[in-house]
């Protein structure tokens, strides 16, 4: 049995999904966290649960909302599970009524009853269920209360006992339904009532769907004549509004019978917090402070000592142990070198940064789960407006600090195609966690006393370049179309320890996993390339294949201050995954640990060329996974190549300027 999860944004669908399936999908406290369909298996293995993006109505505005309409029209499923936010019942029921019209078996999970209770809202569940003619189960998806009951109710065979609620849209619309029924001649398996209402509301997906059965002219005729007839005797201006009003009136009746609001409990805590966080003058400084603390913790106060300790452990006891083990089994010299100089250096060199990456992810998770993300969008909107974007575009960029791939996915929630494309193209400039090891390594070697500051400058540089490019793009390539910004600001929620850990782990897991698979394999290959050369095996590294490959790029990189084959080779592997830069360097420079590598780097780089190198790494190209995501999201090779090309050009120019100007000043 396939059960689809539907509901308004930010009502706890994914929380419910995680709870019932025991898996983990992305949860956060803002609208538009889930942007694509996700499938999970129910705990008992009896049914499949399908998580979908949140929608306010079935008539979509943005791409992620379109996913839901698409799903309803094209995909087969058995039942709909509508998650409803009890504290915002009025708004939520608009969708519920549309789902009832859709006609598939429906069950309602009345979520957030804890929030509703705090606000003094009492919902009579029995009554709501009998009025709607739909089973309603009260739940708290966050804690799991009632989820068992809901799972039980959702998987028991459906019996049509009660008559479902129907909105009375008046005679004219009923006529239109009959008319469409005739036009369709029973060709569509969907409810004609639902199709008619969506068509009249201007749902482009439904219209396209109907066009495969009915002539465009007939459809337009139907819309026209119905609109005229409906609007003739009323003061509403559009048929869309007319339908909305009818639903609204029906919902008003339902609420009167089923809910009770007991005394307002004064100003909610959330609004008090907002007095400070989104204060007119404090908003931006607070955001900058938050970012500063994040970087200090990741790179200075907490992250560095932890990484150093791990480094000492890996290069000490672990390497020692492996070496002894290899001796014990009598491994050949070749194997010895492969394991210690290749794998341990390559994989260990990346794993060392796990603590820092987890700290970064932990803080990003706090930002996501608390409700601060939407506020950042609000605070940044003015700045974003100046460059032709809107504040919502900042959310993908913030997520991009963790990893560019989900960042680009998050751009789906941006309504206008132009702004969405721009955000997709610019998010790779956000410094993701895989670039963090490179910075950590280089600032440790060259900028010991200003670690966090230097790293912060790189993150800021990424944002500034993105904003300047946005301005340029919106005046040249991507002109036109007004930008638009309406954002829902969810109430703050205190992040729960368990949820935080889960979300941090899920993000960090990818990094560890990649180290164990991709980086592992890469390390072996890179080591082999450095071990073998045209002159045979076990050659001097400078005569190896790797040196030959990297050497091709060296002259090109010389004006930037790092014209060595070593830099060329690591940049090449960095396209596959940014952290591969570190493993490559570890292998090339023949050192098992971070400290040793830093010592060697000090001989080949100057502080100026090191900074130039970091800037180049920040900008030069989106990694392979990101490129694939850009291709998927834009659906165009042209834009995909553009995203790589402009990044390379900008990186080259900026690094060139930094190095050449720096040299003039004698740095």
């Amino acid at each position: 049995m396939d059960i689809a999860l539907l509901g308004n944004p930010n009502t706890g669908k994914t929380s419910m999904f995680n709870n019932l399936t025991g898996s983990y999908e992305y949860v956060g406290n803002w609208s538009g966290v889930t942007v694509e369909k996700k499938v999970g298996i129910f705990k008992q293995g009896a049914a499949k649960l399908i998580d979908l993006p949140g929608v306010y109505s079935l008539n979509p505005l943005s791409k992620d909302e379109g996913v839901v309409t698409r799903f309803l029209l094209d995909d087969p499923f058995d039942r709909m599970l509508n998650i409803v936010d009890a504290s915002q019942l009025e708004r939520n029921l608009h969708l519920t009524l549309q789902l009832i019209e859709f006609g598939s078996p429906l069950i309602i999970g009345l979520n957030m009853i804890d929030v509703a209770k705090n606000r003094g809202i009492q919902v009579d569940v029995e009554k709501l269920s009998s009025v709607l003619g739909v089973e309603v189960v009260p739940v708290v998806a966050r804690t799991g209360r009632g989820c068992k009951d809901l799972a039980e109710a959702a998987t028991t065979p459906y019996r049509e006992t009660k008559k479902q609620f129907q909105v009375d849209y008046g005679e004219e619309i009923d006529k239109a339904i009959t008319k469409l029924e005739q036009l369709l001649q029973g060709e569509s398996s969907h409810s004609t009532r639902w199709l008619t209402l969506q068509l009249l509301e201007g749902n482009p997906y439904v219209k396209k769907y109907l066009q495969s059965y009915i002539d465009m002219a007939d459809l337009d005729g139907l819309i026209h004549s119905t609109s005229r007839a409906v609007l003739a005797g009323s003061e509403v201006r559009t048929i869309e509004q007319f339908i909305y009003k009818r639903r609204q009136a029906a919902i008003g009746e339902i609420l009167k019978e089923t809910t009770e609001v007991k005394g307002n409990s004064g100003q909610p805590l959330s609004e008090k917090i907002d007095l400070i966080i989104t204060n007119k003058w404090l908003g931006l400084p607070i955001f900058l402070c938050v970012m500063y603390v994040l970087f200090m913790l990741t790179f200075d106060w907490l992250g560095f000592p932890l990484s150093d300790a791990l480094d000492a452990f890996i290069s000490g006891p672990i390497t020692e142990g492996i070496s002894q083990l290899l001796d014990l089994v009598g491994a050949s010299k070749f194997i010895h070198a492969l394991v210690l100089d290749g794998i341990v250096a390559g994989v260990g060199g990346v794993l060392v940064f796990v603590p820092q990456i987890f700290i970064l992810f932990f803080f990003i998770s706090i930002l996501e789960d608390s409700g601060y993300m939407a506020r950042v969008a609000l605070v940044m909107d003015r700045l974003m407006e100046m460059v032709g974007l809107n504040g919502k575009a900042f959310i993908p960029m913030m997520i991009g600090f963790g990893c560019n791939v989900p960042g680009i996915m998050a751009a789906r929630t941006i309504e206008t195609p132009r702004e969405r494309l721009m955000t997709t193209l610019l998010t790779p400039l956000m410094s993701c966690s895989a670039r963090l090891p490179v910075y950590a390594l280089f600032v440790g070697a060259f900028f010991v006393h200003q670690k966090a500051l230097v790293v912060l400058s790189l993150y800021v540089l990424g944002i500034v370049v993105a904003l300047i490019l946005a301005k340029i793009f919106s005046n040249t390539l991507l002109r036109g179309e007004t930008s638009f910004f309406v954002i829902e600001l969810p109430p703050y929620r205190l992040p729960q320890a368990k949820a935080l850990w889960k979300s941090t782990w899920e993000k960090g897991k990818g990094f560890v996993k990649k180290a164990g698979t991709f980086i592992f394999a890469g390390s072996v290959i890179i080591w082999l390339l450095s071990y073998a050369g045209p002159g045979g095996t076990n050659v001097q590294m400078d005569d190896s294949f790797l040196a030959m490959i990297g050497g091709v790029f060296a002259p090109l990189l010389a004006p930037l201050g790092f014209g060595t084959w070593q830099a060329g080779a690591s940049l090449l592997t960095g396209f596959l995954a940014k952290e591969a830069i570190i493993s490559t360097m570890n292998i090339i420079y023949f050192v098992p640990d971070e400290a040793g590598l830093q010592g060697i780097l000090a001989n080949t780089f100057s502080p100026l060329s090191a900074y130039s190198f970091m800037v180049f790494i920040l900008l030069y190209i989106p990694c392979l996974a990101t490129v694939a995501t850009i291709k998927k999201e834009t659906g165009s090779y042209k834009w995909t190549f553009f995203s790589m090309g402009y990044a390379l050009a900008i990186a080259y120019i900026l690094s060139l300027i930094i190095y050449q100007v720096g040299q003039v000043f004698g740095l």
Partner: protein
Amino acid sequence: MLSMLRKGEKAIITDISKADELVKRRLLDLGITEGSEVCIKCKMPFGGPFMLESCGQCVGIRKNEASCIKVEGL
């Protein structure tokens, strides 16, 4: 006009038809339309967006969009 309200002031929306289509749709999605009571919670500096409160939820919209929405003070 909504944009002329001061922080903390409450008003009822009387005419939203001049606003951009997309803005209108989104506000409608959030349950904000003609007849809704709104309250300005804060205004960002340099002509930045406003934060409104309506039926227990907060929404951010831009100043120029707010200046297309007619309201009547309470």
